[in-house]
């Protein structure tokens, strides 16, 4: 990556970063960095990273950063935001942190419409601990704790987090899903999420489909195929709730297809 393409809010001394080659985390943090740069809010951001591979972002930015504990980044950032409303709170976490161990926080912060942004890295597995079954593991997908593949009759179907939250998200919230396969688009979704918070409207939740070649045990080609085909088929890209088209009543879904909005 050239000097020019590095977002300004990245911390240069800590690059190259610590994620594995081919990992999606770096791309998501690039998109986030682009969004923070564009809005020129680096001096306002409080960045919280969960335990999971997201913890490797603890020294990633020149931003006020707090590394929290597994699944609890949302309430921690909400706590800081409640006493320092001028801050822009970002909770950066994996799908395990967000949808398994910390699901209650995500649901309740959404219900309360807390004015923070949650960025959820969906890589279909618990990556940091070596690749076990996560709420997002696809049907049939093998992991360390689903050696025969996810069996939906026993482990259920993968959770579509943004869709679930969209069903309860109050007016003013913003819920979307992007992918590391479309970094500019992802940066735009993150920017919209941050704008939503800056305007004091409500919670923003942006899920990003990501890659984990280390635990998927895939080469570059298969990694990209899994992301673009299997994952994106199951987890459609788009905006699920936008404060502009939801002033109460049932949630609307924009671009709820692989082609739309991505």
């Amino acid at each position, binding site marked *: 990556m050239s000097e020019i393409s590095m977002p300004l809010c990245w911390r240069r001394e800590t690059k190259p970063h610590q994620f594995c080659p081919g990992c999606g985390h770096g791309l998501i943090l690039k998109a986030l960095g682009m969004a923070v740069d564009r809005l020129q809010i680096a001096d306002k951001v409080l960045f919280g990273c969960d*335990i999971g591979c997201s*913890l490797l972002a603890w020294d990633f930015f020149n931003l006020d950063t707090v*590394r929290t*504990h*597994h*699944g609890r980044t949302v309430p921690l950032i909400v706590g800081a935001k409640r006493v320092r409303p001028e801050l822009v709170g970002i909770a950066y976490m994996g799908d395990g942190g967000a949808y*398994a*161990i910390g*699901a209650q926080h995500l649901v309740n912060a959404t219900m309360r419409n807390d004015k923070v942004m949650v960025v959820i890295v969906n890589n279909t597995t*618990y990556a*940091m*601990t*070596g690749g*076990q*079954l996560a*709420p997002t593991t696809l049907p049939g997908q093998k992991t*360390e*704790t*689903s*050696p*025969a593949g996810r069996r939906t009759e026993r*482990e259920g179907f993968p959770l579509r987090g943004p869709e679930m939250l969209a069903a309860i998200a109050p007016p003013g919230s913003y819920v979307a899903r992007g992918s590391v396969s479309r970094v500019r688009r992802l940066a735009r979704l993150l920017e919209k999420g941050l704008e939503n918070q800056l305007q004091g409207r409500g919670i923003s939740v942006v899920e990003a489909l990501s890659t984990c070649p280390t635990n998927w045990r895939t080469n570059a080609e298969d990694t990209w195929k899994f992301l673009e085909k299997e994952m994106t088929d199951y987890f459609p890209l788009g905006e699920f709730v936008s404060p502009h088209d939801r002033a109460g009543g049932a949630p609307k879904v924009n671009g709820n297809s692989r082609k739309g909005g991505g």
Partner: protein
Amino acid sequence: MKKRVGMEVSFAAAEAVKLCNVDVVAAYPITPQTHIVERLSEYVANGELDAEFVPVESEHSALSLCVGSQAAGARSFTCTSSQGLALMNEIVYITSSMRLPMVMMLVNRSLSGPLSIWNDHSDVMSIRDCGWIQLFVKNSQEVFDHAFIAYKIAEDHNVLLPVIINFDGFILSHMFESVELMEPDVVQQYLPPYEPKYALHPDRALTMGTYGMPAVFTEAKKAQDEALLASYPHILEAWKAWGDLSGRHYHPVEEFLTKDAETIFVTLGSFGETAGEAVKALREKGHKAGLLHLRLWRPFPFDAFCQAIQGARNLIVIDRAVSFGGPGGPVASEIRSALYNKEKRPGVYSMIAGLGGRDVTVRDYMQMFESVTAGKASAYEIFGVRG
């Protein structure tokens, strides 16, 4: 024929849990526990173990689920480390107060913060008073054997208490060691299928998890304490029966060259192995050093302990957790209070060492020995700390 194989200690642990023929495994991954649960999930997937494997959404759920399955009469198992145990804490106390005889393996790791995945005993010391029977094992064979022994003790109708098997993360869990496996029929002979004394069953309705008004709460706690203390002879029986069957004999405190020792190290977990080397080296130099490995932590084996250290002048108690603001490490403080009423008692030197994965070498033990015997050590030290 006895079969001796080399394998990762976590896999030996999983193999033993499989041989226990557990009905339920519920767990959430956390380093360094992961390999045990992953291996169990394989056994369930390939049909080697007929059990419910539930990859739950947190440790709080894992233990809650086991409380439910155990209460319904199923042999249940979970396994965790560090933060996972901290998150379970609420249910850890519930399990023992409900007298549910399940087994948990606790692969010891430091509690945050700072975040560390490495080994010490801060996790288990945070639940010292939880009412479970607590064992510390120090090598692969002991891990393997204690799976059977733990269920045997827990399910004894005279006991009916949950059991925690502690073993050190990474420095034991991720080692390759040789272990003598047992045939399933031998294990079955020792550990027959679980016969619950009380189980939830709609035909024979009962209530578990009751409300304790002030008029009965103290009595309930006293009964719980008595039950834990009264488990002691049954723990010895379970070890004895296992010794008769396997030839491997276990005791609440294990002594190494203590008989004439003037200075005795006291350790928990696999640190005993290195401390043993230090004791050998000290003996070669003519020093009267000994080692006492505390295998049973709860119920605390007061009598056996006092007997083992009789005649010693100094005890060097290695603690791998800090009791912040307290008078010493948790094990040392306990030992001091156990000895307080004795007429003749040794000096107790509390040494905190091996926090967050820091190595404690033979040389370190020798240095502790030297400073204690030269009268230079204080009663409470964080050994080898910089700055």
